[in-house]
């Protein structure tokens, strides 16, 4: 990527290393993982061993009798400090500790406090819980018609107008249903020359940030500080204050660098339990999950996607019906928003006159699912880009030509009715084709090693409406500090925000200090999620810096300095105050324009502040004797607007692609009767250095997000969208095997090869 400054201060487009680089290579970077407080207790959790069951009895005496145990806590104890101990961002359905019944294996039922974490853990294992097992439901499609209900009644959070219709709904596992209707799909299907219909499925996976969830709560004298590895400090504060009935200003949430997040650490995870335990103990309490416990805390939705398209013989898609079922597990978390906000893009980056989308968030007795880098998109793109290739092959058309023919181009209406702007979908597709050498002959292999190529493109809408607020302070020596609540979990936001502030103020980014999120210090931010920070917080920081600059100009005028004089800023303060004193503070608040979709039709003139486009092209080699897929080339191309830091951006894209090779080829939470069999790295493999494709590249197309700060937009999730379908399409190209379910394991491929040869293996 080129490194040409496009703006006057030369800070945007600079590939400077992360500002905290030295701290990260010397091991001194701050993580909440490292934090200890005087008098602190450790909280360890006793978890459910059954997927669905009534709690008959919790026997805690043996645990409490262990020397060094401070206290054993159950839901009844939680109720003495929190009257209604249920939390969640969309639904208040998740108990801090299970009450009455458990809904998934691994659900927290009791907790033990001790100064020594080993004693707390030993005591947690000594708690005996007697369950009356209940029938359970695990599959998202079965849950639609099952007589087993995970919750007796839906409990949507009262704050959202668009969830009000769900209040009090009973005897259903559908937490949320979203619908979109455009044109007349029924008529178009009735008149269709050809109809293609497929069902695609994806598996449940886990983010596995290498710093597992950790929260340390310190409640005293009617106020509290929570140190957390959260991506959402402002939300955690609001939610904890709500649970306690306290004003927000008595809850302080602080973060540090996060050892990865990827969506696992959005909204409340372990903070509510840590807070309740600290209130009960009167001492600081730290809860640090193990890698294993993370698997029971949050995950990516398994999904089923039924997709049907009406197609003319010339290859034009005239109608599409999408039915998406997201397996949300036992608690809604942010799943309803996944079903809604990603659901409306389920028809893909195609220009289709008649579209119907029905997207559902389903409760089951699995560990909860929420946001995971793409917010439901990788599941959608997996299905619609596989479907796209299958239609092209069915019609005898080239998959690239078929995409070109149907692509949703600039100025055309999306399925929501929103007119596409600043979405370089065509450029991304063309660049991918060029990079992989589409249409050119290549070595297809021989004998038992066969090669193929595949291509896929995804389109995501940024979640809206969301707000970011920032302040920028100029000290009397002229140095600049940025106060913003964006959490740096590895994506490089600290560096990006420093670059944006520096560009606006005419400074070097290295000279700007960005304060770690602390809700007593940094203003409100909706959260570090959904690739929203560069756009939303970038604007807020830009506006705050611009206001500070205006105030500095006023200070110059006030102190008699003529405009455009190159006087150091420190001199202005000296003139005003007679010494090195004073502060200039600028503030910025950003809320993009947005129009909520119509409840019945999903139509809106303004669905999103910006579109993200991410495509992958893959060349693979299949060993037909073993079914092993080796990825030879993996190319990622994205529209990210104008890059703030091209190098960090490129790393984001390749990193996302590597991460999603895992989801594509081997990662899978495997269950037997609701029991997770592989919640650890020995049995749940994530990509290592040996899993790298031989050639791995990422690039962005030349594009500008006109509404973005300095032309920029988000990119954190973009590299995840299309990896899996590109590889599945390459597999089909190589050996004529089409897999409808992830992951693409050697066994699945080998079974496919045997099926294709008319000699299928017996099913297990």
């Amino acid at each position, binding site marked *: 990527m080129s490194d040409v400054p496009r703006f006057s201060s030369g800070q945007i487009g600079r590939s400077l290393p992360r500002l905290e*680089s030295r701290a990260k*290579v010397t091991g001194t970077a701050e993580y909440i993982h490292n934090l200890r407080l005087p008098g602190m207790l450790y909280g360890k959790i006793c978890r459910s061993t059954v997927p669905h069951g009534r709690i008959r009895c919790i026997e805690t005496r043996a645990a409490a009798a262990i020397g060094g145990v401070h206290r054993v806590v159950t839901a009844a104890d939680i109720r003495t400090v929190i009257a209604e101990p249920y939390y969640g961002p969309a639904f208040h359905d998740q108990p801090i500790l299970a009450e009455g019944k458990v809904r998934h294996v691994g659900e927290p039922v009791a907790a033990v406090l001790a100064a020594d974490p080993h004693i707390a853990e030993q005591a947690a294992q000594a708690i005996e819980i007697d369950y009356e097992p209940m029938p359970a439901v695990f599959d998202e499609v079965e849950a639609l018609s099952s007589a087993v209900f995970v919750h007796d009644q839906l409990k949507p959070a009262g704050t959202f107008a668009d969830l009000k219709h769900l209040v009090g709904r009973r005897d259903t596992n559908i937490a949320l249903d979203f619908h979109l209707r455009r044109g007349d799909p029924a008529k178009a299907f009735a008149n269709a020359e050809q109809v293609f219909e497929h069902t695609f499925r994806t598996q449940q996976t886990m983010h596995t940030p290498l710093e597992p969830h950790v929260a340390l709560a310190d409640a005293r004298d009617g106020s509290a500080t929570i140190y957390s590895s959260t991506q959402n400090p402002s939300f955690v504060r609001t939610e904890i204050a709500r649970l306690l009935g306290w004003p927000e200003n008595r809850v302080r949430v602080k973060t540090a660098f996060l050892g990865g997040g990827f969506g696992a650490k959005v909204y409340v995870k372990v903070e509510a339990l840590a807070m309740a335990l600290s209130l009960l103990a009167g001492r600081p309490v730290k809860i640090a999950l193990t890698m294993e416990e993370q698997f029971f805390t949050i995950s990516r939705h398994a999904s089923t996607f039924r997709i049907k398209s009406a197609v003319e013989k010339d290859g034009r898609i005239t109608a599409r019906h999408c039915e998406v079922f997201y397996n949300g597990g036992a608690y809604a978390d942010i799943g309803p928003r996944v079903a809604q906000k990603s659901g409306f893009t389920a028809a893909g980056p195609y220009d289709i006159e008649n579209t119907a989308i029905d997207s559902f968030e389903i409760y089951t007795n699995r560990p909860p699912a929420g946001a995971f880098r793409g917010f439901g998109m990788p599941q959608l793109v997996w299905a619609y880009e596989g479907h796209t290739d299958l239609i092209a092959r069915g019609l005898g058309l080239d998959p690239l030509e078929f995409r070109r023919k149907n692509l949703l181009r600039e100025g055309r209406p999306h399925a929501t009715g929103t007119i596409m702007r600043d979405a370089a979908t065509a450029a991304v597709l063309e660049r991918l084709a060029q990079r992989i050498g589409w249409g050119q002959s290549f070595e297809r292999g021989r004998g038992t090693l066969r090669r193929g190529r595949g291509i896929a493109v995804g389109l995501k809408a940024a979640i809206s409406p969301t707000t970011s607020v920032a302040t920028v302070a100029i000290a009397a020596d002229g140095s600049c500090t940025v106060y913003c609540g964006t959490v740096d979990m*590895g994506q490089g936001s600290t560096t990006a925000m420093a670059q944006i502030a520096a560009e606006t103020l005419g400074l070097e980014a290295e000279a700007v200090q960005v304060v770690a999120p602390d809700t007593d210090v940094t203003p409100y931010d909706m959260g570090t999620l959904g690739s929203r920070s560069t756009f939303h917080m970038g604007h807020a920081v830009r506006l705050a810096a611009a206001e500070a600059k205006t105030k500095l100009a006023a200070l110059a005028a006030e102190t008699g300095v003529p405009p455009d004089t190159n006087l150091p800023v420190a001199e202005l303060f000296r003139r005003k105050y007679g010494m090195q004193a004073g502060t200039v503070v600028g503030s910025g608040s950003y809320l993009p324009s947005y129009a909520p979709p119509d409840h019945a039709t999903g139509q809106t003139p303004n669905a999103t502040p910006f579109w993200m486009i991410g495509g992958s092209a893959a060349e693979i080699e299949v060993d037909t004797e073993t079914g092993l897929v080796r990825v030879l080339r993996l190319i990622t191309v994205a529209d990210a607007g104008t890059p703030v830091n091209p190098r960090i951006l490129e790393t984001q894209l390749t990193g*996302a692609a590597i991460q999603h090779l895992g989801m594509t080829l081997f990662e899978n939470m495997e269950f037997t009767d609701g029991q997770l069999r592989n919640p650890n790295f020995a049995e749940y493999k994530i990509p290592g*250095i*040996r899993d790298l494709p031989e050639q791995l590249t990422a690039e962005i197309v030349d594009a500008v997000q006109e509404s973005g700060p300095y032309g920029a937009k988000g990119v954190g999730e973009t590299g995840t969208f299309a990896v899996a379908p590109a590889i599945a399409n390459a597999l089909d190209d190589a050996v004529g095997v089409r897999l409808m379910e992830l992951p693409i394991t050697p066994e699945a491929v080998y079974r496919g090869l045997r099926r294709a040869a008319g000699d299928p293996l017996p099913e297990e």
Partner: protein
Amino acid sequence: MTVSAAPMTIRFTLNSAVVDALITPHQSLVELLRERFDLFGVRESCGQGLCGCCTVLVDGHAVSSCLYLAAFADGAEVITVEHLAADGRLDPVQEAFIEAGAFQCGFCTPGFVLMTKQLLDEIPDPSDDEIRHYLSGNLCRCGAYPEIIAAVKLAAQKRAV
């Protein structure tokens, strides 16, 4: 199962200083280094010796300190990432990791840096395959592997000068 057992004292060299520590027999080296010596560059993540976040050098060899009992360190020389820039100057491996942009969240970075140090001590000019072999026990969930490979090569060049 009982947690308490008779404590014992060990003596070892930690980052060039001879130290004594009172430990329990079940205690892991990662716990000792973090809780007793405040060396937070050593990190427990998977707890199974599979991710490499807890990598330290014991007598010059990288070990997973989450599985390595503190008792085994008695009489040994232990080096953590904190020692590499103890004089305020970054090790060439650390410089290379910065210049190549070989990390995102940074949680796994000390482990990769120490493993790279052992690699380059043993093979000053490693091939791609040797790099992958040595680093196959370190996981990076952010997926900075391409930059890490570039960093190892850059570090090899820096050390050769």
